[in-house]
């Protein structure tokens, strides 16, 4: 109530903008209570399900001895390298293919639309059963692929999940297969937003085909591409399912990424502190990515 009288007095004295009014966003009287009533539930949910878990996680990972143990673990270094490879190859190959495929799906014709429908299926089906299917399909002895190779040629097929390089390759291929449709649709939407007049004008100037892509499409999609790359990198950094269900981190713990190693350390080794330390060790990569993404989005450059 005191604040209300102060506001009235100040306003009456000279019309200068009151400090408290600015603090409340210009709301007066019961409007403040209304605002609080609407905000409070969301605030409660945010505190309960965001602030508290994140804070608790940071607290779990705050013990310096966890990092000493983690950095001394030879599997950790291997995992860091795997994570970088997984991000660098998985994200970039996926987005580049998505960009190319989005061009194909811009083509007219009913069969292209039908094909798009089929193409989207891997993304539409639930992730865990599909990755488990990949795991079974790639099994060296009784998997679909190697069984077919044996039946056709009487030779053993490649050890898809039995050597580190093959297993990491299998994980990356499964990851690309799963997420390629989603990003293709994003780029397809981006392409569809480019005005046709621009292509017509370019065509008049002699830019068709690859030159049209280089001088019209790519410059206009460049910002979208960068934002997609950043988003996809952030999401993929936390991707647990692909590695866990396709290779299981094997063979010999050689295909773990930070997300799966964190779970292993927390629950298989029974050390939640080290598990959190593993995940937190990704922050030096994650935070700059998020900041860069925020800056990209706030500058409003993601316009076609």
């Amino acid at each position, binding site marked *: 109530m005191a604040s209300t009288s102060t506001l009235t007095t100040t306003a009456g004295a000279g019309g200068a903008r009151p400090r408290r009014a600015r603090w409340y966003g210009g709301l007066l009287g*019961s409007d403040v209570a209304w605002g609080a009533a609407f905000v409070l539930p969301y605030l409660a949910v945010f505190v309960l399900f965001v602030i508290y878990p994140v804070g608790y996680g940071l607290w779990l990972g705050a013990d310096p001895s966890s990092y000493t143990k983690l950095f001394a673990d030879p599997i950790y270094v291997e995992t860091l390298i795997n994570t970088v490879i997984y991000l660098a190859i998985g994200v970039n190959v996926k987005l580049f293919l998505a960009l190319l495929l989005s061009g194909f799906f811009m083509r007219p014709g009913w069969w292209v639309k039908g094909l798009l429908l089929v193409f989207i299926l891997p993304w539409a089906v639930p992730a865990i059963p599909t990755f488990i299917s990949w795991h079974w399909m790639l099994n060296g002895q009784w998997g679909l692929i190697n069984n077919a190779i044996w039946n056709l040629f009487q030779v053993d097929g490649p050890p898809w*999940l039995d050597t580190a390089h093959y297993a990491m390759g299998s994980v990356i291929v499964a990851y690309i297969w799963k997420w390629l449709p989603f990003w293709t649709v994003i780029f397809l939407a981006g392409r569809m937003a480019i005005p046709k007049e621009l292509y017509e004008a370019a065509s008049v100037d002699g830019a068709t085909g690859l030159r049209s892509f280089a001088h019209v499409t790519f410059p206009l999609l460049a910002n979208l591409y960068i934002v997609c790359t950043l988003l996809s990198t952030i999401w993929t950094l936390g991707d647990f399912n692909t590695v866990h269900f396709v290779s*299981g981190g094997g063979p010999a713990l050689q295909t773990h990424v930070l997300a799966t190693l964190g779970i292993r350390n927390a629950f298989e080794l029974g050390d939640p502190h080290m598990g959190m330390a593993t995940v937190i060790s990704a922050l030096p990569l994650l935070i700059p990515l998020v900041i860069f993404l925020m800056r990209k989005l706030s500058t409003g450059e993601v316009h076609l």
Partner: protein
Amino acid sequence: MRSWYRRGLVAAFGFCAAMAFTPPIPAHAAGKTVVIWWNQGFYQAEDQAMKDAVAAWEKATGDKVQLTFTNGSDLPAKVVAAITTGEVPDVIYADVGDFVLIPQNAWNGKLVDVSDVVDTQKSEYNKAALEAGRYYNNVTHKRSYYGVPLKEQALHVEVWKPLVEEAGYKMSDIPKQWDQYFDFFEDVQKKLRAKGKRIYGLGYSLATKDSDSTYLFNQFLVAYGGGGIVTPDGKLHADDPKVREAAIKALTKLTKPYKEGFVPPGAINWGDPDNNNAFYARQIVMTPNATISIAVAQMEKTDQYMHEIVTQQLPLGPDGKPVTSLVAVKQAFIPKGAKNVEGAKDFLKAFIQPKNLDNYLKQARGRWTPVMPSIVKDDPYWLDPKDPHRHVSVSQQVGENVPIMPWFMSFNPAYADVNAEQIWGKAEANVMTGGMTPEKAVDIALTQIKADFAKYPEPTE
């Protein structure tokens, strides 16, 4: 009217927000309910037997039980999270509890002493079960019972009789001594391959995940004379030449056939169900497995269960003497912070009465073996010769002069870390795909094991 409406709305929002912050009232607040987290069984009847045991106890005491079954692969994470946050149930039973949950938490003083529960049946338990349930508590600096033994398992060998016969052998041709026994299956593979079959002789689990490969290596270690790697006083004997030699022999015996093509290449990445699946697919002639679950799962297929799948005990050791079986004793425990410790203990005391335990274990179709010799003696079910698998498994683990020993984690929790970190599995991989010699791989493993033991100072009572 409008103002009244606004105030009401604001109050409602406030109430909802307050409710969001209010912790839920636990079901056992009255102290009359026991909250139990139990590993889901392999068979529905196993879970039903547990429900029946709970219902009988509820009826007898008038107390209530809140029973939750959780899949065995999900339960450890749930328990670790519960103990970390302090929101724990009153009783926990997890199949892998003796491997990854009980030893470290007992050491850290996070479990309730259950000596008074175990004492009620102390004369009934076998020696290994009693040794397995005792752990060192580094807070009180003494050993005590922190696990209530319920059942046990040991490594057996499952063999496809038709495949042995297809190779031109009889089951009686299988040698009885360790090295010759396992070498025999390499010959079986050669004969089957000559007939164009894509079959492997040996179904060894050689992975760095789950527990089958851990079980296999450690049983081989014991067979070659390395059972003294950790002694019951909790001391590590990594520098004992006998232990090193046994480890080298075990590692060589397991990895050489892999490199020579007698083990499926995928075995380097097998989880616990994978050797079962390979066996069912008849892609391996034999596989060592810690329970008779492979056979029992085929019980409805009478031909397979009764005539084709053969369960064999471990062969005689390399020295011609019976091999000591490593038995994993499965235990229930009570975490500190449990709201109804008395109720939990009362339930467990009732549950481990031989008759009750017998009823429960029978519903698992003999997959688990009793930890009380009297159960086997008094109930003909366990040694019924009409069943081709159960009596083989039981007589390997229960009876007078049967050589068994508990796992090393009971002596020192550091060995639970050794298993969880898959140190021996990594050693196998170093030899199989890393080009390392068994000697070097063993030395690296023993160095890592010493580092793990250094984290758990020598128990001093």
